[in-house]
């Protein structure tokens, strides 16, 4: 058994139309609401492409890497960039479809740093020549971006801007190492959040790799120590509430974890159901034992609930709903917890083979665990939700 999404009996063995994680016949798994034909098509194309890509992985690899050039060819990098800047002019709802499929495949790709956070951050900024040029470059893939924003439970910006210089440090920044340009979420001398663009290798800017157990993700540390700043590289958030815009950026990051988490949870349920239907012990398939069957049913229910919460959050973020934060914190906390439960159950139900390196379930478990921690642990998101009930 391999959980590698190569179509050889592992997690990616479901066809593009649905799979056991789906809530029902016509609705695909993670069919995030009324997305219609465009999303079904995007989902099918993404799943097929990722499966073919995974098949090229070497026999010793437990996960697949999606090359940058392949990502650029798909057009996924610029989904949210406006059409006049060579993007597709669509919303986070479509980005969510891609994230969900990347999670299913546990694919290693800088999509999160550049397309989800980079393009997402630029979209929230006031238009201007410098921002527009970078947005165009990110959309077509000629520049790779990373966004240094708070990645833990505390969401205060880690960088300070004074008149001419910026300083600060951010850790576990997605896809920082290898990025051509890094966008720092900073606070200006007036206390307002701004975005400062720097390049690795600029004086005072250090970007280093930050290895983590989840090998499918590339994280980095961004240290900026009194780096001189060109005023043309300081960008303000559009609208009259920059703090809210900065929160929206964090929300998008948190929601990306949930999209990925739902995808990988579905993949693990499918591979577990397939295994339980074929593996025989005591003279019958282990899936006929109630203990195993009911554990799979619980995974199915968690996925069904998570899919609904995720759908609500994706719709509200895509619509720039001012209350999107509530739906995001619900989705992030529920789905990322459920995903760990589900992958954990997958490892358990696969028995000994599930615990081997070659089996590959560990790839999903590590990714699910990282998703749960990145951009706010479940408890941090629940604290945000709970604050509404505590007010005097």
């Amino acid at each position, binding site marked *: 058994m391999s959980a590698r999404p190569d179509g050889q009996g592992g997690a990616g063995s479901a066809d593009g139309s649905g799979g*056991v994680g*789906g*809530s*029902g*016949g*016509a*609705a695909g798994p993670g069919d995030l609401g009324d997305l219609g034909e465009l999303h079904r098509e995007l989902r099918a194309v993404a799943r097929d492409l990722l499966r073919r890509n995974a098949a090229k992985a070497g026999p010793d690899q437990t996960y697949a890497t999606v090359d940058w050039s392949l990502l650029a060819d798909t057009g996924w990098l610029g989904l949210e960039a406006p059409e006049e800047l060579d993007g597709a002019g669509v919303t986070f709802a479509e980005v969510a479809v891609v994230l969900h499929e990347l999670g299913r495949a546990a694919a290693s790709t800088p999509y999160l740093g550049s397309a989800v956070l980079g393009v997402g951050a630029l979209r929230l900024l006031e238009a201007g020549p410098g921002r527009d040029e970078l947005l165009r470059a990110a959309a077509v893939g000629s520049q790779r971006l990373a966004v240094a924003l708070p990645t833990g439970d505390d969401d205060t910006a880690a960088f300070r801007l004074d008149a001419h210089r910026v300083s600060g440090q951010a850790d576990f920044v997605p896809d920082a190492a290898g990025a051509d340009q890094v966008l720092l979420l900073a606070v200006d001398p007036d206390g307002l959040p701004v975005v400062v663009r720097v390049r690795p290798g600029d004086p005072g800017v250090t970007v280093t790799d930050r290895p983590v157990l989840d090998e499918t993700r590339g994280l980095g540390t961004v240290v900026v120590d009194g780096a001189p700043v060109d005023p043309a590289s300081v960008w303000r958030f559009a609208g009259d509430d920059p703090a809210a815009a900065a929160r929206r950026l964090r929300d998008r990051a948190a929601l990306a974890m949930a999209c990925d988490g739902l995808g990988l949870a579905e993949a693990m*349920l499918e591979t577990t*159901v397939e295994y*339980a*239907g074929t593996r025989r012990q005591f003279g*019958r*398939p282990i*899936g*006929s*034992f*109630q203990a*195993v*069957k*009911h554990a*799979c*049913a*619980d995974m*199915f*229910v968690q996925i*069904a*609930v*998570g899919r*609904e*919460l995720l*759908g*609500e959050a994706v719709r509200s973020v895509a619509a720039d709903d001012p209350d999107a934060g509530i*739906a995001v914190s*619900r989705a992030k*906390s*529920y789905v990322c917890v459920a995903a760990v439960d589900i992958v954990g159950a997958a490892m358990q139900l696969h028995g000994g083979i599930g615990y081997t390196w070659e089996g590959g379930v560990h790839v999903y478990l590590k990714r699910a665990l990282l998703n749960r921690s990145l951009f706010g642990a479940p*408890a941090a*998101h*629940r*604290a*945000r*939700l*709970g*604050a509404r*009930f*505590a007010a005097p």
Partner: protein
Amino acid sequence: MTTPAISTADLAEFRAEVRRWCRAEVPSDWRRTQAGASDDEFVRFQQEWFQRLRTAGFAVPHWPAEWGGGMPVAQQVVLYQELAAHDAPRLVLGFVSIHHAASTLLAAGTDEQRRRHLPAILDGEIWVQGFSEPEAGSDLASLRTTARREGDGFVVDGQKLWASGAAHADWCLLLARTDPAVPKRRGISYFLMDMRSPGIDVRPVRNAAGESHFCEIFLNGVVIPAENLVGPVDQGWQVAQSTLSAERGMTMLELAERLGNAGFRWLVETCRTPGPGGGRPVDDPRVLDRLAELDTEIAGLRALCRGLVERHEAGTAGPVEASVVKLYYSELLQRTMDFAVEVAGLPAHAELRKPASSGWESGAWVLDFIGSWEWTIPGGTSEIQRTIIGERGLGLPREPVVSS
């Protein structure tokens, strides 16, 4: 029965209309008058409330337009939200009538059966479900009550159990065995039984919460005319299965909004009420964490129920969505009530009665918690739902049948 789409502005206008109606029509003192109400008082109150809702067009919004419903799902959600938020009484007595009986008649009944009963239900006809038996609980298909063909009708003998509200019922949805010679699921027929027929004896069974709405029904030579058969003879199991998804969607939509807009809000109120020492439970971060978790799960449940109804109308609902919703609601209700008992502390144990006509979360938390097993056990236990999800939803192999 696809319902039309509705604009945001129309929905806001509808919400305002329901709010005005609730402020004018929801009796302000019903919790007091229904606490410890006699059976007669309860029935009278329920019938009166039902007619008030009916006049407003709010009693059976989920029915097709031609029978007096036709409300778009989005509006139904608003209606249920506002009824719950205004602490309206629930339709307890007519629950089986407007949901189970109606969806069975609409899905499988004859025109004559519909004409006879749907308007009667609007006029207050009360139904009970006669499915379970002492020896047929989770294994419902092994039921032993027999219906023997005799002349122009059927003669029924046997015993039904857990028939909620049977003491007040006019009619019964009855499953009985018409062919004992074939495999158990193929020999069952579905009947509409007049509860005034000779040979019916109803005895209440007191439940764990101390209430007696569950009943045993003893059937001795009860004659049912052939015209009261629903669907073909021996196809009753299939009729029961096919109406399940519809009725679950409709019932759960209301219950989920109730849990979100009434139960959870009262739980928050309980958590904000200072204890004897002056501190509020809500000032404890552990309490807030649990509230946030339940808030999230209830949001998920509500979306799930709404999705089920919409997909059912669109014909795209999956084979086990109804089981998923029933299982999730039951266990979430139980978890929520358990937590409410915990934060409410000792005073909750001194709430000795819950008002009749209230929801599953009345605020008498200990009784509500005990009452939550009325969800995890009947209508297919949680274990049965998991087996259904595993086998029909995921395609896992069935358990080998042990030969007897």
